[in-house]
């Protein structure tokens, strides 16, 4: 289905989904911790906006609730918690530079093409308009994974993990019109609990190795045996 045949609201969904993908790239390449948290908050807000517009376009009122939940949790509460954590860990001005940023970003572009290739057979089945977004959400998931592989800083890795969850949520909303409410609530609280646990872990890691650079964890296990 070409975009010109779609109603305006569904076009808006496509535009918002594309911007979600862009925020994924911003997260991937963002060096400043606080700005990365802001980018994550924007991504959550946009995912909520996608849900809201899908709800309006598809007349599915149960999606309003999930949009509200996403907005509160992913755009406000989790970023606020992360912000407070970063402040308490005194990482406000921390800069975590990506090694070879251009190459990593190109790898992410490759992932977008790969996920499009994966989804292609599904899109060709002449299904609803939102199926096109599955490729985008898959790309968001894969870029989150890429972020966890390439970034060394623990907080940024958590951001990558959370943005993977955003991608899954986007896929659920666009492909099937949202998950059942029970599942959605369960996932939301899982994420929240994960966030709290991550916070505890940050302090543990920091107390043990004096930094949140996860690469040091490796080095410690290698030299750990020699220490008295």
């Amino acid at each position: 289905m070409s975009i010109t045949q779609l109603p305006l609201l569904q076009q808006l969904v496509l535009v918002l989904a594309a911007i979600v993908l862009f925020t994924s790239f911003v997260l991937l390449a963002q060096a400043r911790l606080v700005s990365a948290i802001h980018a994550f908050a924007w991504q959550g807000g946009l995912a909520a906006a996608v849900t809201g517009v899908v709800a309006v376009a598809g007349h599915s009122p149960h999606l309003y609730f999930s949009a509200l939940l996403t907005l509160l949790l992913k755009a406000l509460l989790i970023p606020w918690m992360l912000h407070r954590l970063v402040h308490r860990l005194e990482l406000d001005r921390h800069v975590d530079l990506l090694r070879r940023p251009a190459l990593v970003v190109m790898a992410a572009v490759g992932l977008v093409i790969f996920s499009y290739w994966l989804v292609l057979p599904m899109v060709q089945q002449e299904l609803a308009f939102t199926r096109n977004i599955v490729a985008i959400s898959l790309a968001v998931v894969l870029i989150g994974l890429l972020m966890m592989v390439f970034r060394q800083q623990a907080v940024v890795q958590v951001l990558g993990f959370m943005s993977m969850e955003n991608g899954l949520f986007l896929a659920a909303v666009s492909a099937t019109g949202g998950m059942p409410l029970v599942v959605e609530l369960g996932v939301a609280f899982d994420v929240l609990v994960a966030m709290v646990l991550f916070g505890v872990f940050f302090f543990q890691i920091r107390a043990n190795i004096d930094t949140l650079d996860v690469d040091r964890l490796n080095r410690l296990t290698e030299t750990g045996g020699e220490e008295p």
Partner: protein
Amino acid sequence: MDYLLIASSWGLALLQALLFAALAPLLVGWVRKVKAWLQNRRGAPLLQPYRDLYKLLGKEVRVAHTASVLFRAAPYVVFIATWLAASAVPLVAVALPTAAIADIIVVVGLLALARFFLALAGMDVGTAFGGMGASREMLVSALAEPAMLMAVFTLAMTAHSTNLASVVDAQLAGGLVLRPSYLFALGALVLVALAETGRIPVDNPATHLELTMIHEAMILEYSGRHLALMEWAAQVKLLLYGVLIANIFLPWGIAGSLAPADLVLGLAAVALKLLALGAALALAETVLAKMRLFRAPAFLNLALLLALLGLLGHVILEVGA
């Protein structure tokens, strides 16, 4: 009757090209005026760029001993190439014969020709500043050009043509369609335009600070009418990018036919769009700080990424199966 139509459309094309050259200093004056207002100054009058050009055109030309013929020829080449590029961009009306001869790739090529001669002229005299400016300009343009072409290809894929008039026509015929690819292409083109016209995050047009200047460093040795032509060319280039952005992404109001009422409406519409764009540029220049030169590649990488996402967004989201 047929001859009359052809003659009138060519006449209009010529008029539009003259309008480009005539309006360019006004846009610069407007941007400076808004910037002055934002800084709580009264600022120079709106017509000051015209006065500067007039003054420079009347002044004696001084040329360094070491300068070759190239140094004298460069201002004319730069101005004519930029002006020719501008004449292919639809300003007031779409259906003009100039748009049929030159597509957007020719426009990019003509701008590259102008930049090539500008850089050569910068190095010709052999001063340190000229060479430095030329090398910086080449660094910026080598990164900006792929991003620009990629953004242009995104538009061309939607319109199935690289011709600017067809792109505008396709946009007008489709009515209001929210296209993710256009959004990204707009972002990429804005970043490229800022870099190519030497505006603030990349270059500062208002200073002659030796460590940071790019464009000013290359034309440091020029005086008199040569300098006037160089500055005028830079102003035409700014107007070209402004019109390109305004008329491709928001083509509404542009004259589809050659009827006088349509043309007046088209002129008013483009003037309004340029006023808004100029004010936005002045606001951006007031809010943003100039980047270090070595940050410029990251800035232009962002433009390239946006253009790439535009292309991918077009393929993934807009074509469908």
